[in-house]
């Protein structure tokens, strides 16, 4: 009996050890980011490399706004993200409602189109998109990025919202119909309030994906002050030789860029696995 207990104890010790190793590997780059963001620049380049800064330089977190041009990056990112959220919710809520509860011409082929469209990387059609936006004078403007982020997240958000609306019992809508609500009123007065959690999760997804978007932001924006934060940070790296990069400020900026995302992801962590694999033709 004692023997099995001892065996069980070593097993659980081993398990805990594996968990710790797994977490250390997963978190190591994050620790590096925080460590470098607290170093002085000459400490970053000094060998041997240490994880714990020689002297902590917390003022990096204030200096980065003065020394680097990242304030405009954050403002641009916020404008683009908010714009995308407004546009994407106003298009996807009615569409998801129609796919979930209504009957209309072309429902099946359109649903198939929604499903398939999210499989193709935007980079495949970047040339025609560039010429199109250039033709209507939208290159190097916020609306171009708002439109692109909306287009390439739309299918995903519609599928998420559709499954949210699917879980609302049909009787709820029918009761509203008997009370004289038309379909628009049923959507706005009943389905939207009932599904507020699902809609909030969808908005957070739209936020994170827009915040992270790189391809279009990098290709379409040429005015420095209009570039979103992701591109501003990348360009500090791109425009300097490796030894000339102010790594401590880049990593400070990276921390500022990452924190809101991680917080949002932790808020919706129970919905993440469902979100991405939603959507089958039933």
């Amino acid at each position: 009996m004692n023997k099995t207990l001892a065996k069980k104890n070593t097993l659980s010790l081993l398990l805990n050890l594996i968990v710790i190793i797994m977490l250390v590997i997963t978190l190591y780059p994050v620790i590096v980011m925080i460590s470098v963001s607290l170093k002085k620049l000459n400490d970053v380049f000094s060998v041997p490399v240490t994880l714990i800064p020689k002297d902590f330089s917390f003022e990096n977190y204030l200096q980065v706004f003065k020394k680097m041009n990242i304030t405009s990056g954050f403002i641009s990112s916020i404008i683009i993200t908010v714009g995308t959220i407004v546009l994407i919710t106003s298009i996807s809520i009615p569409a998801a409602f129609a796919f979930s509860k209504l009957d209309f011409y072309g429902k099946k082929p359109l649903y198939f189109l929604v499903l398939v469209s999210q499989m193709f990387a935007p980079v495949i059609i970047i040339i025609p998109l560039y010429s199109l936006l250039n033709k209507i004078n939208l290159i190097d403007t916020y609306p171009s990025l708002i439109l692109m982020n909306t287009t390439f997240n739309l299918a995903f958000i519609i599928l998420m919202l559709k499954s949210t609306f699917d879980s609302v019992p049909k009787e709820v809508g029918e009761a509203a119909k008997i009370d004289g609500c038309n379909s628009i009123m049923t959507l706005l007065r009943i389905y939207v309030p009932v599904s507020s959690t699902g809609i909030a999760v969808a908005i957070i997804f739209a936020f994170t994906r827009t915040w992270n978007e790189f391809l279009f932001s990098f290709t379409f924006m040429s005015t420095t002050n209009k570039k979103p934060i992701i591109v501003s940070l990348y360009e500090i790296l791109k425009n300097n030789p490796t030894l000339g990069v102010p790594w401590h400020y880049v990593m400070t900026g990276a921390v500022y860029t990452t924190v809101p995302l991680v917080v949002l992801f932790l808020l919706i962590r129970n919905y993440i696995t469902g979100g991405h694999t939603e959507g089958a033709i039933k």
Partner: protein
Amino acid sequence: MIKSKNFKKNDKLINMLYIIPMCIIFIIFIVIPILKIFNLSVYERKINGTLVFVGLQNFKDFFTNPDTSLMLLNTAIWVFIGTACKILLGIIMALILYRNFFGKKVATAIILIPYAMPAAVSCMIWKLMYNPVFGHINQILRDLNLIDKPLNFLGNMNTSLLAVMLVNIWAVAPFCALNILSSMYSIPTYLYEAAKLDGASYTKQFFQITLPLISSSLRTLTILIGIWAFNAFDVIFMMTQGGPANSSLIMVNDIYQNAFQFNNRGYSAAISVISFALLSIFALLYIKSKNSEVTYE
């Protein structure tokens, strides 16, 4: 009866108003551009800016280009081996997280962080860590006495693809783990209890219960991760630009380079068409797999 049928028909028409905005966006920004790509792939832009019809010449150029085979091989390694690693690590992490231990909730939240981080940020961190002089990875290898002189992971033709793959695997494997974990939770626990009573070992339980029951959702996940890998442009673009000497170049990066850096738009469109065809196969597989998924509840 006839009246109500007409009424229904009318409704079907009116209900289309709900999806018109979506259709407009899709037609303008996805459908028409895809058709344009097919059109563009048979033209070549001359130096003076005029488009000349060249037929299938761009495709011929693609298959006769000596760099193509390396690029296709890189793409295959990036997609297939990368996906295999992500899924395998995902299963291992999910198995660890499935069991009860102190701090399980915190651990599950922590492994989400690599996935939540913007790709650009993780690329910057890894670029710093890979640096031959002041990078952390070389320092660790020095501390362990594994190397005499610094290794330049991103600048070496033999290691550049593996180095960028590692970044991508690090970012996506936790997502796989969480997905696999949620399908593992949907397996009724009485199956394990019965197996335990019969004296089945953990390995036996895994191969006889867990794996068969998660296999259908695992297949869907694998195809999805493969599609994402094929489409992953950011990591390679930011870390190596496909270099050195194309050693880490994959298809989507080739498309971008030809379009915006070498100004070979027709050639780039031809690669887009080929990618589109490949992705269509993956997409159909995904939908088929998704539809045949079974749940055990």
